[in-house]
């Protein structure tokens, strides 16, 4: 007599019958199959690679990191000369990547927010100009825009005919020259005062929040905080006798001496990244603001909140919830897109690692370094943004 259907399914659920009809068995079968194919593929590639490396006598391992690099780098944030090791050259490249990414993220956020709000403006002309900006920028490749900026910057007059934008600020095809304050040991105190002011403002705001939660009255926050963060460092600086010497760039012969330089490569890359990313951020900000229903404003007004309190307590928390996740991916994009630096000759990590792998012939190690660097930076940004996102997320019961 045949066993009943329920009996059969009970048996197979217990793993009784070892057949492909059993879901658990099937799952294991597929996983073993796929993993096996992947492992075989990797083994095949690795064995080929090892054979090729031996045949071409390419060294393996990261031993080259300690060797003298001999590659000149145009701009470095830490002391560097071509006689330094590859390791130091790569660190210089990584710092340059981080520099352009941080500056790019900050400026793109500001510009993007302004343009996103402008697109929602009641002024027709302003809204149309903002949307024309967004459409033109989003629909052309970043690399092309970078080339355009770089060509425009190179088309500027030479140092002798440099455009003077202000006292000690020169624009030429060597980049932008700006005056820079000379570091004085007394400045340590000013920086210390600034740090103390920021910590003080943070503690004060926390106390103010606690007071508000307890009594319902909010003590004044803005003025005391500004006083701690701005006035305190200035008072300390004045008390020390206002030590400040500017290093002003001046034309000597064929080039400028003194002052700080924004190289054309850095300027083109930063401007390109900021202009490009701002168009995407503008759309995110616009969507975020539009996502908050009008009734929220009206309800908050009916409760009797001031306009800036409405913005801070009602609108922004809701808009940010929509804005933060796509903003995170834009920040990651800025970081990854900064790798296009290699096309215009800005010495970022990709460019330095690329030269390294060309000089040493160790392609695998070079690309592994690039990928490891970006993965670390990307993961750090996503971790931070996820933490921030969780903090502002809707608390549901």
């Amino acid at each position, binding site marked *: 007599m045949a066993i009943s259907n329920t009996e059969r399914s009970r048996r197979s659920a217990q793993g009784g019958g070892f057949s492909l009809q059993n879901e658990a068995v099937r799952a294991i079968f597929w996983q073993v199959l796929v993993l096996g194919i992947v492992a075989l593929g990797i083994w095949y590639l690795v064995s080929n690679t090892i054979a090729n490396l031996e045949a071409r006598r390419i060294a393996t391992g990261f031993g080259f990191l300690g060797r003298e690099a001999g590659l000149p780098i145009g701009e470095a944030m830490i002391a560097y000369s071509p006689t330094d090791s590859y390791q130091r050259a790569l660190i210089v490249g990584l710092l340059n990547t981080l520099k352009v990414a941080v500056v790019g993220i900050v400026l793109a956020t500001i510009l993007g927010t302004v343009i996103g709000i402008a697109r929602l403006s009641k002024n027709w*002309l302003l809204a149309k100009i903002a949307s024309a900006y967004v459409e033109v920028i989003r629909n052309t*490749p970043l690399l*092309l825009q970078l080339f355009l900026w770089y060509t425009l910057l190179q088309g500027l007059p030479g140092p002798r005919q440099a455009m003077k934008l202000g006292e000690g600020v020169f624009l030429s095809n060597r980049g932008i020259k700006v005056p820079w304050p000379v570091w004085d040991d007394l400045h340590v105190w000013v920086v210390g005062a600034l740090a103390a002011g920021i910590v003080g403002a943070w503690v004060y705001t926390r106390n103010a929040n606690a007071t508000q939660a307890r009594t319902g009255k909010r003590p004044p926050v803005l003025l005391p905080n500004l006083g701690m963060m701005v006035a305190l460092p200035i008072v300390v600086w004045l008390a020390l006798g206002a030590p400040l010497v500017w290093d002003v760039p001046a034309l000597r012969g064929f080039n400028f001496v003194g002052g700080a330089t924004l190289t054309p490569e850095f300027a083109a890359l930063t401007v390109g990244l900021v202009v490009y990313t701002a168009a995407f951020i503008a759309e995110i900000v616009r969507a975020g603001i539009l996502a908050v229903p009008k009734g929220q404003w009206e309800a908050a007004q009916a409760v009797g909140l001031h306009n800036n309190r409405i913005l801070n307590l009602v609108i922004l928390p809701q808009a940010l919830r929509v804005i933060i996740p796509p903003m995170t991916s834009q920040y990651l994009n800025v970081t*990854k*897109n900064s790798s296009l630096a290699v096309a215009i000759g800005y010495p970022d990590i990709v460019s330095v690692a690329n030269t390294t792998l060309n000089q040493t012939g160790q*392609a695998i190690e070079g690309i592994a370094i690039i990928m490891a660097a*970006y993965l670390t930076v990307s993961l750090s940004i996503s971790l931070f943004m996820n933490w921030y996102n969780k903090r502002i997320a809707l608390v549901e019961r």
Partner: protein
Amino acid sequence: MTSLSSPGPDLRTGAADLLPPRSQRGVVGWMRENLFSNWLNTAITLLLAYFLVRWISGFVDWAFVNAIWSVPGNNTTACREARGIGACWALINEKHRFILFGTYTYEEQWRPLIACALFIALYVVSAMKRFWNKWLMAIWAVGLVAIGVLMWGGVFGLTHVSQERWGGLPITLILSTFGIVGAFPLAILLALGRRSTGMPAIKALCVVFIELIRGVPLISILFMASVMFPLFLPDGLNIDKLLRAQVAIILFAAAYLAEVIRGGLQAIPKGQGEAADALGLSYWNKTLFIILPQALRIVIPPMVNTFIGMFKDTSLVLIIGIYDILNAAKTSIIEPAWQGFGVEAYIAVATLYFFFCFAMSKYSQKLEVDLNRGMRR
């Protein structure tokens, strides 16, 4: 009958009486409302209008009034004299064939031209809902074979043109089209794998692949394809550089597309899958006939956006030395006579990119409205 279609004169005067005052309607009313509603708006409008007029007139002077449209031979003296005042469109006049088709045999350049037209025709046909059926696949197959025959030649009396000579717009279109076509099936498998609950090993594999690719820039993957890939293959087996770049772009696009498709899969209510299970459908039947048709429909607009991104990102292949349209433009100004006219070349290529991407983004916006029509109440 006539009274229904055209109301009597008395009615019309009555309606005129009810119109808002003159200052609030027509052009004047619109301007008062949208440009000069208060002192701040008026100030913004005037300031913007001033800059806009100055900037546009400056640009028109440069791009049209003072521009130089053609020069005799390769003598660019006239262009150099007009530097900074007028554009040198003579560059485009002289080099447009090179920018569009690279070093493809000059007499045979009608072939890549038709290939590009075929690509555009394929995009247009795929954009029309009327063709969203089984015939679309056949149209694509025929179209791609025709493009291949045109580009390679060697049959039907067409001379063979080797792949090293290809360049310009066809390369950009080939890389982006095959990139998305190749990435699509892979992306679906990755998205399904990432969503699978019963197979942790496959899920982990998919997550690692997707996050690894999304965490690094496209350039690093292109470098990998150009310098590392030859090391992976057994001795003697050499894959063409264009194909290697194509594989890199497919892998890159697949990771991004997988996340888009996963979004669509997540949006399908759980009940759909459970209902299919209750009917006794197998996993693949359930996925192919119940889940995917609904999920893919939702994500068509974001997929078009991914395609736009891919289309722009193919320009990165110039870094590993492939002659796409941007690289062709960059190379066209290397000749000493034409050096320094990069702005003109880049603006021309930017216009072309804009034409493609803008059309696609407008289409995706329209599609989004169309597809949501059934959902709206």
